């Protein structure tokens, strides 16, 4: 076979795109850093989980179910979600994590020359999916650590198809209140789709926090993303979903991959919703305690921090975040460096149980004090 110049086959927007390489497996990292344990504080996982109802499902999962394809469009889960949110099952699409539904929405609405709008310092996957699909991602700088709704509106043009609002924002924890959200949606009108990513919805306990499920009743161009990875602690099973108006979801369904969510994930998600109130309360309490401990440590060390909603907070460290990462890894603690989020010298820390938070605070203190 003659050699082929593959570069000629590749669109320019792929050639210029930098692939994302996730971390090595924990076992490999532990060997590399010479530690016998690793506290994962890098991915905003809920270390309290999964809920007991999910644990029962996982423990009882029958091997005989493994050769059988899952239900192709998560029939029972969509029904469960419809019951929970007082909607119909057709309004839901479930994906292999909410990253998959980001792709479905962009593919459904964007064509060559179109653009999406989001923030410069937010969950990066909106930007990535747009760019490696050949669409422009217009990134609006945060204002006071939150999405700048006025600047987002100003950036819109006739080729803007989707606006992504991460509410609350990962990583800053800021959110738009009901008034701001209404004002924004009123001005967008029916010119574009507005995705409200509520990955951390269940962590927010504020009266002025808007609920996307209610907003879509008034604004048919609203699509809400939620996930079972964060509050419900099903990250390993990869399952998230979107909800929108019937006709909008019908369009997205055309680009959405079926059979991508496995049987165990579907069953676990149904179980997670069956009695979630006590689990959510326990998780919120854990996060609250963790915040208090870390903020006290930051105050005593004189470190700046950003702490809003969600099960994470950010700390500004007096060195490069990548150096802090290496130093903490040597102490068995893994955090997220934030240079890639355009927050150089900041780390993001997941908020988990008290004993692990104490270990983190101790490790952080030792690094800052040069021990």
């Amino acid at each position, binding site marked *: 076979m003659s050699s082929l110049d593959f570069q000629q086959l590749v669109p320019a927007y792929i050639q210029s795109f*930098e692939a994302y390489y996730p*971390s*090595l497996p924990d076992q*490999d*990292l532990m060997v*590399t*850093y*010479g530690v016998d344990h690793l506290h994962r504080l890098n991915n905003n996982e809920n270390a309290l989980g999964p809920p007991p109802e999910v644990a029962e499902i996982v423990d009882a999962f029958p091997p005989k179910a493994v050769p059988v394809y899952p239900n192709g469009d998560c029939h029972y889960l969509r029904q469960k979600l419809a019951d929970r949110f007082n909607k119909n099952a057709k309004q839901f699409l479930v994906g292999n994590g909410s990253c998959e539904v980001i792709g479905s929405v962009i593919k459904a609405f964007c064509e060559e020359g179109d653009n999406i709008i989001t923030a*410069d310092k937010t969950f*990066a996957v909106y930007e990535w999916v747009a760019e490696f699909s050949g669409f422009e991602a217009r990134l609006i700088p945060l204002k006071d650590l939150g999405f700048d709704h006025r600047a987002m509106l100003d950036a819109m043009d006739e080729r803007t198809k989707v606006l992504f609002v991460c509410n609350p924002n990962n990583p800053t924890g800021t959110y738009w209140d009901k008034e701001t959200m209404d004002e924004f949606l009123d001005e967008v009108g029916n010119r574009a789709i507005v995705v409200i990513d509520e990955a951390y919805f269940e962590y927010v306990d504020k009266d002025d926090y808007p609920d996307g499920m209610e907003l879509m009743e008034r604004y048919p161009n609203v699509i809400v993303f939620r996930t079972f990875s964060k509050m419900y602690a099903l990250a390993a099973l990869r399952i998230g979903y979107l909800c929108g108006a019937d006709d909008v979801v019908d369009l997205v369904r055309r680009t959405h991959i079926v059979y991508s969510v496995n049987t165990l994930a579907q069953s676990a998600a149904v179980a997670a919703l069956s009695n979630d109130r006590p689990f959510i309360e326990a998780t919120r309490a854990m996060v609250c305690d963790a915040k208090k401990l870390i903020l006290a440590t930051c105050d005593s060390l004189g470190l700046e921090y950003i702490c809003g909603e969600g099960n994470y907070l950010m700390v500004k460290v*007096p*060195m*490069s975040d*990548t*150096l802090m*990462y*290496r*130093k903490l890894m*040597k102490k068995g603690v893994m955090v997220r*460096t934030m*240079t*890639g*989020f*355009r927050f*150089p*010298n900041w780390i993001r820390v997941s908020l988990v149980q008290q004993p692990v938070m104490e270990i983190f605070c101790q490790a952080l203190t030792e690094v800052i004090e040069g021990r």
Partner: protein
Amino acid sequence: MQKNDQSILLRLFAETRFIPLVQNMVEQGSLAFGLEQAKTLRLTMAAEEIVSHLIETAAGVEINLSLSARRWCVVADFSFVANPSDLWAMNLVAKENVGAEKSLDHLGLMLASRMADGFSVRLEGKTVHLELRQDHAYPSIESQSIESGVFKGKLAILENPEPALIKEACALVVNTYPTYLTHQAFFTPGKVVDMVAEGDLSLVICMDEIGAIAGLISWRSPSEKSVSFSGPYVFAGNGDVAELLESHLLNYVSRTKAVSLFSDLATEDMTTQNYESLGHLDFMQADDQSMELGVWFRHLREDMGGAVWTHPSVREFLEKAYDRLVLMRTVRDVESAGESLPENSVFSARLRPELREVILTPMVVGANVDESVKRHVDCLIKDGYQNIFFNLDLAYGWQASMGGVLLDSGFVPKILLPHGGTSDVVVFQHV
């Protein structure tokens, strides 16, 4: 229709009768590209030396000569597929064994390098590239004493400054900073404007509310995986200016392919906590004054560890460096175990005559490696090069194995560049 790539191409063979053809192409092509007469003459003579060298050392080889223009320079690239046994001739100071313990010097590449503003030898697969660069003649500026400015109002970053601002900023750098911390191109502001327009240099300017220039930072991409910066240059105000400039750079590189950020020329205004010190290099300046240049690094990714090779004599240096930088590496020894090696060593070279600087890297490590290192050093020193560096990429055992020879030849390991090449790179300096 105007084409972007207006390179002139010539395919020829290394034969004497084609020398006038090369001379004419380089001369007429350079003039057509707007290179000044005197500069054109020097580039033509350098090209003639290269062809003559190839006729002597690789007679008959098929050569592709490309002459291309960038806004600020003309580049002549000679490329050819080299027989491995002929690679020795690509040494800057090639020497041919002609039997009975006699040898013949071939200094054509060295001669060519003297006539060019830039010269490099590199190997891409089996293809050797000999590249000559001749810069346009730009008016240069000299340092003048000025008073430190005061900025007014809010500071902002200007991403694509217009040429007038670039030139003004260059003059401010030259007037404010010592020569050894000033990017060489800033002495010729017109060249900087052209380099920026060509994408060969990037810079942003910090402005105050009334349009006065408060600072500048510039950077380049020496490889796909690394970015090197000069600055930040601060002309007015306080640490806010440096922080704004550095934040802009960090945010820019954070989502590129770059893995490492290095300093080319780090000023005292640099925010040290943004970086990790890698140590310093000793530079001999044009006035024969020595100065220390600190080298700084910032990793742009979470480090996953890795394995590197080393000669046993360099292990202690590496272990100390890795320990200080908290970089997890498995360091494996490699040295000659009596295996047969190619007869000749071949080193690639990147020369910067204006700084009297040369960076050597191995292309082939042969049985004569120690003698070859010595010849290169002797010849380079004789030619006025006082800043001689040898870089070894620790991804390759065959490169790392040279460490012992370099130590025996008067080099010392000075700097470890994390992810500076395929893997980490050790910079040896001749002392």
